């Protein structure tokens, strides 16, 4: 049950000192999303140079896993093309996070990736991730 290495130094460092944190203005693409289980929130801002993500930032509030994972994500995707990131398997991010996650915590970890893919979808028409399809309440969280 106990896993002291869960909050390993790398995660706490990204949580306390998030990379690429803040609002990019103007941005070519933005999206925001929430994790309905625990209220984690992430907004991402992207600038493109052609199809390449030239700059990215994020804002949000939530658990250490959701915020640290999004911070790590910004480092992974900068300089890659939108279509490459849109099809990026979540394992690439999970390997970077490097700790075993229960299904509930997995949702925290991939929130930022999903929101980024929504932003790319809106700007470049790349496919939406499965977990964001059919999300159309009165007030779209992917609006």
């Amino acid at each position: 049950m106990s896993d002291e290495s869960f909050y390993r130094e790398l995660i706490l460092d990204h949580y306390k000192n998030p990379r690429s944190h803040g609002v990019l203005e103007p941005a070519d693409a933005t999206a925001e999303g929430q994790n309905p289980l625990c209220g984690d929130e992430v907004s991402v801002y992207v600038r493109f140079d052609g199809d390449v993500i030239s700059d990215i930032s994020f804002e949000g509030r939530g658990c250490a896993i959701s915020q640290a994972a999004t911070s790590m994500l910004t480092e992974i995707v900068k300089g890659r093309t939108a279509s490459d990131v849109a099809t990026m398997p979540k394992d690439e991010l999970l390997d970077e996070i490097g700790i075993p996650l229960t299904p509930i915590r997995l949702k925290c970890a991939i929130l930022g990736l999903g929101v980024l893919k929504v932003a790319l979808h809106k700007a470049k028409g790349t496919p939406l991730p499965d977990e964001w399809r059919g999300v159309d309440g009165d007030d779209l969280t992917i609006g």
Partner: protein
Amino acid sequence: MAVTQAAKLDAQKLRADFAVFDDLANGKPVAYLDSASSTQKPRQVLDAMREFYEHSYANVHRGVYTLAENATAGYEGAREKVRAYINAPSTREVIFTRSATEALNLVAYAWGLENLEPGDVVVITELEHHANFVPWQFIAKKTGAEFAHIPIDDLGELQLDALDGIAARGNVKVVANNLVSNTLGTINPVEKLAAWAHEQGAIMVVDAAQAAPHKKIDVQALGCDFLAFSSHKLCGPSGVGALWGRRELLEGMQPFNFGGEMIRSVSLERTSWNELPYKFEAGTPAIAEAYGFGVALDYVSEVGLDAIEAHEHELVVQTMDALAEIEGVRVFGPPADRRTGIVSFELENVHPHDVAQILNWENVAVRAGHHCTQPLMTRLGVAATTRASFYLYSIPDDIDRLITGLRKVKETFGV
């Protein structure tokens, strides 16, 4: 509130009824502090349900054979127990549902859709559970009625001075409120709201999911028109809840679900509805679960609601006192004497999910999240809280372990 010295309950003794506390990790049972979400189940309920399934089970209201008669007697006996538990005038007014949520949806759909129109106002509160919020928001939007909320003050208590302003906005037709807030434990002034609702010509809909396990409920004294609660929060099985409604209102409503059981006669041309309460119980119900619900009501009543309330009050005082000693902790909600056994708090600079994760290493089970009360979270200015909640089997040691766990959280996060 009734914290006078009624019969005291012996939590340590009651724990023998709950097998989960026999499971030890590092020599300790789980410190289960999530009873507001769902309670553990005593052997009495589980044994009774097994016995029912093994020796008294058949579908209800159909067969003329002995087993079917026994099953029906068990099911209808549970309805009488629900009636007595909330002091309803008649079992005809007691409808078994899948949950408190379904009961509230039943009222929103079957009453709201038919009776609301533009110019009407539906009133909910800022601390409503989504189950008594989203159905009304949806039905208000569908019917063109206005959707208004009663705000709360900084202690999480309803600001009733807002009522006049709300009444000025149109014809108030529905007032919906939880008797106890599932997030803050606030005990809401439902009697006052019901009286105000009736002055406006509105119905009063009470979500008692979080109140029924912890304090005595009397629908006639509350003066409400509908009241919903569930079995699983008071030691009963999940999958069954109850709706009480005033007979004249229920009689005037169309059914919510259609199918078997809820009809009187069906032809190619037309169908007529069954009498109350069966008009609202389409399909085979959760028979054994309803039976178990009744046994759970017996169990809780035998322990005694006054004793439960007093026991939880002691635990709340212990928790709030201990949390006040920890730097960086902010407790939400009213003082201990105006709440039931729920304490929501935040630890500065650590998200509740991370708090709960580290507490789990200590085998302390708390809830972290928005507790299905996102408008309330917005009002409090947080995304989520950590919530410790108690029941008749909770003991002071559970809280000691919570506090020890919180110190470990602070150490891990360096706050």
